[in-house]
């Protein structure tokens, strides 16, 4: 079919996209086209595999579909119903959920820090959570590759985790970011301007430079900010992958020999009609992120897998982690105008690691965030439901606020879950996800410490008063990878322990989350999985599980 999609003002993806028949047994059917699925599709297509990506949403044409307007940007987010509960229910549907080609990378702020080496050994070092089945060194080359392919900008000498440099120069920080920098400097806290952010200070390929518009969280109309929609998916299409939009998967049937051979999905046509289709494939990759991936697996029941596909461990849907994301704002006498410049522009990871002086383990990062007016009003309202003149007066200080986001590590807990709701159904008649979330003691202490630190930084920068509300971002963990099939859903290659030709390739495989925004880690894991597939598929590695493949 003919594609005609703006990816920036003068870069139109104007090309013929290969289309497969449902009866074609393609090599890979990938469900979801975000940070994981988009990169994996590009890699597999380049390696010569036939690839169909089923994406529930649509292409986001930067000129016609994205708008420079907060209230008008709802279509970027996953807006299908989810029920939330638990002691600390998560708000969904905005910052933590994308829909359409590029997934959440279309509307992420762009922070792309790596995990630290310690993140892979939390159980060994801190006696909590679990270790990853891999070490930092095994993902490091993929971080380096992804930082060039996104690309990611940042300082030449990034001091935290395993120190490294970034290949592209960062943008100048706006006034709000300079407050974070100033406060940290005044306190002697190491801080980097430019962060690790997927917006370089110049043009890259067909993508122009940033115009400092500040609407990053509502999609980049300029195409300066990286998303897999502009970094990897065009290359996937050029190498023969089909991105089939408007397709919502609901079942991955398993056949007698214990392999999967197709994905069943509902396809919404241009006229709004919904039809049921089934794409045959030699292997299936589930890449729908931490809610939709476990939902699809749990919904794919069979006599072989009565509790959901690939769920012999019973772990699918468990150990959901949101990242702690309290927002702290300070009011300054001077003008800030936080709406200018990308919100992601400065950060410190000085408090990332476990510090024995703390009464909690693990840590947090401080990053710039700059809410637009509606988001800012929602923060203010969170302080006790403030309304009326009090709300209007506080909102009139909008240009005097600088905000700092605390990005903190919440530990995995079996009681934080994604399950199928017993009664509520979606527009296709499928059970909606039920997302239950609770904070535990370490989480609360860590968040309080992060808030206190952010307030200290803002005061050191000259804030007259500070306020804070708890927020959450980045959902991971519900199909965790691990070293053995009893306690995890996938192995270190993101391959199901139970089903040799089934993969999960998104944030849900992360056993812990660190205090790093997960997109670059998800993409790096996808690239690593692709390399394993390239090596093992010709030897029949996708039809059986051999000891050597499992523990390589």
């Amino acid at each position, binding site marked *: 079919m003919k594609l005609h999609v703006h990816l920036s003002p003068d870069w139109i993806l104007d090309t013929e996209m290969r289309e497969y028949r449902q009866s074609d047994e393609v090599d890979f059917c990938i469900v979801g086209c975000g940070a994981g699925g988009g990169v994996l599709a590009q890699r597999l297509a380049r390696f010569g595999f036939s690839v169909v990506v089923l994406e529930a949403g649509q292409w986001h044409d930067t*000129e016609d579909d994205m708008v420079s307007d907060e209230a*008008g940007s709802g279509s970027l987010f996953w807006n299908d119903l989810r029920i939330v509960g638990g002691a600390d229910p998560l708000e969904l549907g905005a910052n933590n959920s994308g829909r359409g080609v590029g997934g959440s990378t279309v509307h992420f702020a762009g922070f792309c820090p790596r995990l630290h080496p310690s993140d892979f050994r939390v159980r060994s070092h801190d006696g909590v959570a679990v270790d990853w089945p891999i070490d930092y060194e095994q993902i490091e080359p993929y971080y380096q590759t992804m930082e060039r392919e996104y690309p990611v900008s940042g300082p030449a000498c990034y001091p935290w985790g395993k120190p490294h440099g970034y290949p592209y120069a960062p943008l*100048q920080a706006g006034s709000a970011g300079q407050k974070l920098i100033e406060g940290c400097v005044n306190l002697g806290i190491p801080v980097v301007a430019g962060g690790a952010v997927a917006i370089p200070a110049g043009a890259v390929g067909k993508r122009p430079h940033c115009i400092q518009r500040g609407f990053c969280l509502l999609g980049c109309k300029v195409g300066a900010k990286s998303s897999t929609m502009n970094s990897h998916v065009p290359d996937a299409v050029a190498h023969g992958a089909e991105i089939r939009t408007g397709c919502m998967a609901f079942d991955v049937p398993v056949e007698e020999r214990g392999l999967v051979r197709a994905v069943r999905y509902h396809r919404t046509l241009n006229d709004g009609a919904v039809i049921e289709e089934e794409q045959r494939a030699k292997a299936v990759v589930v890449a729908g992120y931490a809610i939709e991936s476990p939902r699809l697996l749990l919904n794919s029941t069979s006599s072989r897998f009565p509790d959901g596909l690939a769920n012999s461990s019973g772990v699918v849907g468990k150990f959901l982690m949101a990242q702690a994301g309290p927002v702290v704002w300070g009011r300054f006498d001077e003008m800030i105008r936080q709406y200018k*410049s990308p919100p992601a522009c400065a950060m410190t990871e000085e408090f990332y690691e476990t510090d024995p002086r703390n009464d909690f383990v693990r840590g947090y990062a401080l990053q710039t965030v700059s809410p637009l007016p509606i988001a800012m009003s929602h923060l203010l309202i969170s302080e006790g439901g403030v309304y009326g003149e009090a709300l209007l007066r506080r909102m009139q200080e909008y240009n005097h606020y600088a905000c700092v986001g605390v990005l903190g590590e919440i530990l995995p807990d079996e009681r934080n879950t994604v399950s199928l709701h017993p009664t509520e159904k979606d527009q296709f008649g499928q059970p909606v996800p039920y*997302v239950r979330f609770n904070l535990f003691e370490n989480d609360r202490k860590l968040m309080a410490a992060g808030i206190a630190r952010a307030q200290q930084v803002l005061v050191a920068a000259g804030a007259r008063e500070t306020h804070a509300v708890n927020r959450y971002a980045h959902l991971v963990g519900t199909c965790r990878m691990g070293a053995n099939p009893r306690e995890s859903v996938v192995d270190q290659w993101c391959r199901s322990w139970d089903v040799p030709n089934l993969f999960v390739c998104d944030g849900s495989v992360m056993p812990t989350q660190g205090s790093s925004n997960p997109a670059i880690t998800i993409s790096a894991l996808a690239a690593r999985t692709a390399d394993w597939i390239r090596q093992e598929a010709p030897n029949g590695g996708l039809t059986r599980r051999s000891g050597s493949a499992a523990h390589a």
Partner: protein
Amino acid sequence: MVRNRYPRADALEQRNHWDDATRRVVLDRVYNIPEFKHFAGQRRATLETLCTHVIPQTHRAPERRVPLAPWIDDLCEHEVEAFRFDDMPPNHVAWEWGLDGIEQTAELMFDTPFVELERPRQVAVLEGIRGGTPPGEVWQRMPAKRWWEFVAVRQIAGVYYAHPYAWDEIGFGGPAYPRGYLSLNHGDREPWESEEVR
């Protein structure tokens, strides 16, 4: 009283510097106010009065007031509900129950319909809901605090701060594509932005 701190701010005046898609969305919001379809009678009257409390606009000239209630009505007609707390009903039902609940609370506290109460008594009703333990059967089946924050105030404020007149009030410049920004330091304004008068 809310003062006009940005005397030269006029986001709408910059419309010719916006891209087509954005201009369509924002101008449609400003000039095409939807008719009431979902709420009528007492519920509609309660909603309109509630809006004057959440976002009071008496400081504005009548022609510069932002219509709020019609958009809440529209929201209930074209529901997009990305998530729902497991102790809440669907969003449009939450609106119906909440508006009925305001009435129940007003009747139980003052034996008078909410819209007929003097303003301080209306405030007392709303403060009861905001505080989380207002009288009324509705509030036994729906948490009042949750309704107040997530349904009433957030959604009404969301309508307000989507409007160019509200942007002018807080000194936000509005859409910024394709022009972008060049004055990035020290909170500087662009030539087309208003200075602040404190």
